[in-house]
């Protein structure tokens, strides 16, 4: 029951928030209290070893729409709740049109539903709902660049979802079911057959468009950079994670080990390269979303229980510090009149103190200073990596992250002449508190021994080494400017690159021999 109540209650609150727009604040409070109670119910069932399950539409396995409150689903649903709370507090006093709140509630409800669904077609429909709602949220400000970014997002996302639908059709033609649990043995029995490779490539390519994977999600930097801060926080913190979650579910069915590691490495390295060269810091954060998804994909592709738990923890950690960074940077940019590094540095006294502290916590979290969220999750992930190659990529990404976030240093330390608004400071406090005290959160997601191992001397030395090397590189290259090709982000080229990505995934599946 709680599995279906979570999304349905949010959809009901969404409708009420536009019909009784004056009650939008009490409705938001009620929504979060009810969601917390339902999530606690699911968490207790999961802790007792009996995750709640539900099959809608039919009693027979494989035909109805099944939902399960498993560890992955619970983790992402809890992340959606936490970020929804932060964003609702952040916009508490903002004067926004009622349909903005309708869209935010719809978005969170759809995230809950995606978290728990085990059915591929249901996932397709929910992804399309997420696309439509995100499209309207990105274009909410009606500025031409927002409209253009959201239109590109809609076209590329719809194209990706069509590939996903072709994959859904191929799977159904051969298995007669779309339930992930029922598909696992059927696909394993046909390992290496052409239809398995084709459907795996189509489904992976389709979901990757939503998941922030570099070759596929080329709409992301513009959409996340142009949207309002509250929208960017939700898109980058949780909506992208829904695509990642579906990739996790697909990796349980199809032999995606090699594609995930290769796509993760490409996403991480190219994301960092573009982030280092970006001067608009909102765009830099958007590129960093791509690079951080790289960590998560590498962890899940490594296919060891520890690396998978580390990837899960990192996905949550990234959701927290990226939401905090988007919210605080958006607030700082609104106070100083621009989000590029020069404007922020010139007018740094105009950044409110709470915003500045939030930026510091967010930056320290993302660069992996012990014992903050980024460090803890990355250490668990690295403990599970079986070979040296992914280790090197992860370390290079850590160095690149420090290098790119060096741009924040010039405006982080100054005396503020402006006070923060109370709701903004509360939202920062909630997210910042979770980032600083991430260790207990990661214990809940993983286990005590894994989290204790993450605090080992090797990880501490590695973390400080990447901080030192990254900082040194920043001092060396900070006066240089470089521009990477921007043509790949144009609407004409992006569908071709998505197709190229599809062929790459197919080739990697062939090389991997179709074995899981």
């Amino acid at each position, binding site marked *: 029951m709680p599995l279906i109540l979570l999304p349905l209650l949010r959809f009901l609150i969404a409708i009420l928030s536009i019909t009784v727009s004056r009650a939008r604040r009490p409705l938001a409070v009620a929504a979060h209290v009810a969601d917390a109670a339902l999530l606690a119910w699911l968490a207790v069932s999961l802790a007792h070893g009996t995750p709640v399950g539900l099959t809608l539409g039919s009693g027979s396995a494989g035909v109805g729409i099944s939902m399960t409150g498993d560890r992955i689903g619970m983790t992402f649903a809890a992340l959606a709740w936490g970020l929804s709370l932060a964003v609702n507090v952040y916009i508490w006093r903002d004067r926004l049109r009622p349909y903005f709140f309708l869209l935010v509630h719809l978005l969170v409800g759809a995230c809950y539903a995606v978290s728990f669904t085990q059915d591929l077609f249901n996932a397709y429909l929910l992804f399309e709902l997420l696309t439509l709602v995100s499209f309207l949220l990105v274009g909410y400000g009606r500025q031409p660049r927002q409209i253009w970014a959201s*239109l590109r997002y*809609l076209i590329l996302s*719809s194209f990706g979802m069509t590939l996903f639908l072709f994959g859904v059709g191929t799977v*159904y033609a051969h298995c007669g079911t779309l339930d992930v649990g029922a598909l696992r043995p059927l696909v394993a029995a046909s390992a290496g057959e052409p239809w398995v490779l084709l459907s795996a490539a189509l489904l992976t390519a389709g979901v990757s468009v939503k998941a922030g994977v570099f070759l596929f999600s080329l709409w992301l930097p513009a959409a996340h950079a142009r949207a309002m801060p509250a929208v960017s926080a939700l898109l980058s913190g949780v909506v992208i994670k829904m695509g990642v979650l579906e990739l996790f579910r697909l990796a349980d069915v199809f032999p995606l080990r090699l594609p995930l590691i290769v796509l993760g490495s490409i996403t991480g390295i190219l994301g960092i390269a573009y982030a280092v060269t970006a001067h608009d810091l909102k765009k830099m954060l958007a590129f960093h979303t791509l690079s951080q998804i790289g960590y998560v994909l590498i962890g899940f592709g490594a296919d060891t229980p520890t690396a998978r738990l580390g990837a899960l923890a990192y996905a949550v950690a990234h959701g927290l510090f990226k939401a905090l960074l988007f919210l605080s940077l958006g607030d700082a940019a609104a106070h100083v009149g621009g989000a590029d590094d020069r404007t922020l540095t010139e007018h740094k006294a105009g950044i409110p103190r709470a915003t500045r502290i939030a930026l510091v916590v967010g930056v320290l979290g993302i660069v992996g200073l012990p014992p903050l969220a980024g460090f803890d999750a990355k250490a668990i992930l690295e403990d599970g990596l079986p070979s040296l190659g992914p280790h090197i990529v992860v370390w290079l990404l850590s160095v690149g992250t420090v290098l790119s976030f060096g741009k924040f240093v010039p405006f982080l330390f100054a005396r503020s002449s402006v006070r923060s608004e109370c709701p903004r400071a509360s939202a920062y406090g909630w997210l910042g508190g979770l980032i600083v005290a991430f260790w207990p959160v990661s214990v809940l997601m993983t286990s005590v021994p894994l989290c204790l191992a993450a605090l080992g001397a090797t990880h501490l030395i590695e973390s400080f080494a990447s901080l030192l090397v990254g900082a040194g590189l920043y001092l060396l290259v900070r006066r240089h400017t470089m521009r990477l090709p921007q043509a790949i982000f144009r609407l004409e080229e992006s*569908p071709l690159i998505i197709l190229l990505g599809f062929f790459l995934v197919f080739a990697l599946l062939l090389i991997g021999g179709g074995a899981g």
Partner: protein
Amino acid sequence: MATIVSFVLLGIGILALVLRRDLVIKLLALGLINASSILFLVSIGNRPGGRAPIQFPGETAVLVDPLPQALVLSAIVVNFAILALALVFVMILVERYHTTDAQRIEQEMSRETDEEETPCL
């Protein structure tokens, strides 16, 4: 046969989406791509000699698989919503830039600085 046609439609749609600069044509191409996936889903439910999936008592006729047909109904509605909303946003851009050419819109936009930007509506 219908499966092959669906792949041909997909190919034509992708070509038009990539090669044509007109935003309205791009959206039509997207509609074609979406339609190709719907045709593909319907085609996989087909059975030789199969009839519409309505079974009367005592009848043992071969019926096509009803599940893909039920699935495409939702997909058609979703695709309609996407095209309708995308056309509204294209209309907003046309009102501002007086063109449906995607490249010209991108060029005009890159000339504008953030300060010059004013809401379209």
